[in-house]
C-alpha cells in the first residue's frame, strides 16, 4: 500500500501504482478470456497463409449480395454492427481446410471448431467454399459427402451427400449448417468433407493445391441464451 494513501470512496488502503497496474492488467486478461469463454489464451496459433486468407476474404466480398448477408468480419470499420438478435454475443468463424487422406478418386478435407465455441454457441449458418480447377472438357460429376465422427470418435458417419456436375473452373458453395450444428456435443468438433470423382477423369479439386484456392468454411454463431428459470 502506498504510504498513508486511502481510497477516497471506500477508505481501503490505496494500492501502490505499480501493483495497481498489475492488478488491472490481470483483470483485463481475465475479463476478455471469460467473455470469450476461453480457459486460457490459445497457444501460438498457426495463421493461415496470407494468399489463402486474402483469397477467402476476396471471395466473401465478391459474394456480397447485400452487406446484411455479408459476414461481419468483412463489413467496413472495426466497430460493432447492429444485427438482429443484438444483445446476445455473436460470432463469425472462418475455418480453413486441413488436407486429409486422398486417393486418385477421393480427397478428404478436415475443418476443426473449438470446443468452447461449439458448446456455448448455436450455429446460425455455415457455408463451405470449394474451388474447382479446370475440369476435363464437359460436365464432371463429383460427390460431396459430409462425414462426422460418431460420439465415440472411432468411426465416421455420412451426415449428408450431394452430387454436383462441375461445368467450369471457379468457386462453388455448399450449405453445411446442419452438419456443423451436429458437432456441438463433440469433445473435439471436426467436420470432414469427402470429395469423390469417377476414376478416369481425376479430381477437379486435386489439381490445384495452391493456397489461394484452399477450401474454407464461414460460420455465423450466437451465444446460447441461458436457460430461463421457470417460475413456480
Amino acid at each position, binding site marked *: 500500500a502506498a504510504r498513508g494513501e486511502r481510497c*477516497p*470512496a471506500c477508505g481501503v488502503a490505496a494500492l501502490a501504482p505499480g501493483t495497481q497496474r498489475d492488478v*488491472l*492488467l490481470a*483483470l*483485463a*486478461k481475465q*475479463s*476478455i478470456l471469460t*467473455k*470469450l469463454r*476461453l480457459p486460457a*489464451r*490459445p*497457444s*501460438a*496459433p*498457426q*495463421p*493461415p497463409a496470407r494468399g489463402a*486468407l486474402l483469397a477467402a476474404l476476396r471471395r466473401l466480398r465478391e459474394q456480397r449480395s447485400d452487406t446484411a448477408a455479408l*459476414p*461481419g*468480419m468483412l463489413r467496413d470499420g*472495426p*466497430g*460493432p*454492427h447492429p444485427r438482429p438478435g443484438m*444483445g446476445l*454475443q*455473436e*460470432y*463469425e*468463424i*472462418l*475455418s*480453413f481446410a486441413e488436407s486429409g487422406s486422398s486417393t486418385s478418386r477421393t480427397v478428404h478435407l478436415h475443418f*476443426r*471448431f*473449438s470446443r*468452447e*465455441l461449439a458448446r456455448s454457441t448455436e450455429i446460425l449458418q455455415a457455408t463451405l467454399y470449394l474451388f474447382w480447377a479446370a475440369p476435363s472438357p464437359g460436365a464432371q460429376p463429383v460427390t460431396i459427402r459430409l462425414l462426422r465422427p460418431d460420439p465415440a470418435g472411432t468411426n465416421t458417419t455420412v451426415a449428408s451427400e450431394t452430387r454436383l456436375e462441375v461445368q467450369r473452373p471457379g468457386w462453388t458453395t455448399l450449405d453445411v449448417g446442419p452438419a456443423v450444428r451436429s458437432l456441438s456435443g463433440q469433445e473435439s468438433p471436426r467436420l470432414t468433407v469427402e470429395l469423390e470423382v469417377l476414376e478416369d477423369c481425376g479430381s477437379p479439386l486435386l489439381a490445384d493445391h495452391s493456397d489461394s484456392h484452399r477450401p474454407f468454411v464461414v460460420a455465423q454463431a450466437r451465444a446460447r441464451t441461458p436457460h430461463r428459470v421457470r417460475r413456480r
Partner: protein
Amino acid sequence: GVDCGADSRMCCRQEFFVDFKEIGWEDWIIQPEGYHMNYCAGLCPLHMAGIPGLAASFHTAVLNRIKAASAAAAVDSCCVPTQRRPLSLLYYDRDSNIVKTDIPDMIVDSCGCT
C-alpha cells in the same frame, strides 16, 4: 460524464489502456491493438447523488424522495458506469480459425453517481 484528472476525488471515469503487445497477446488477437479498460472511481456525496443525466432513472427518483423525506434514511451513492459499448475482437482460436465477435458492455464511456 467526467474524466478523472490527476487529483480527482469526485466520481469520474479513469482511462486505462491495455496494449495487447505489452501483455504478449498480439500473436493471437489480430484486431484491435488494445483494450480501453476504463473504470469509474471517486466520491458520490449525497448532493451529487442522482443528479439528472448522471444516472437519472426511476430508481434514482425514488431514492431522492426517500432522502428528501429523511436524511437518515439516505443510502450511500455509488460511482458507476452510465454508458458502455462493445469491444470488437478479431482473433485466432486454438484451432487457428479466425473468429470475430463483439463483446457487449466491455468499454466504459462515462460514469455517474447512482
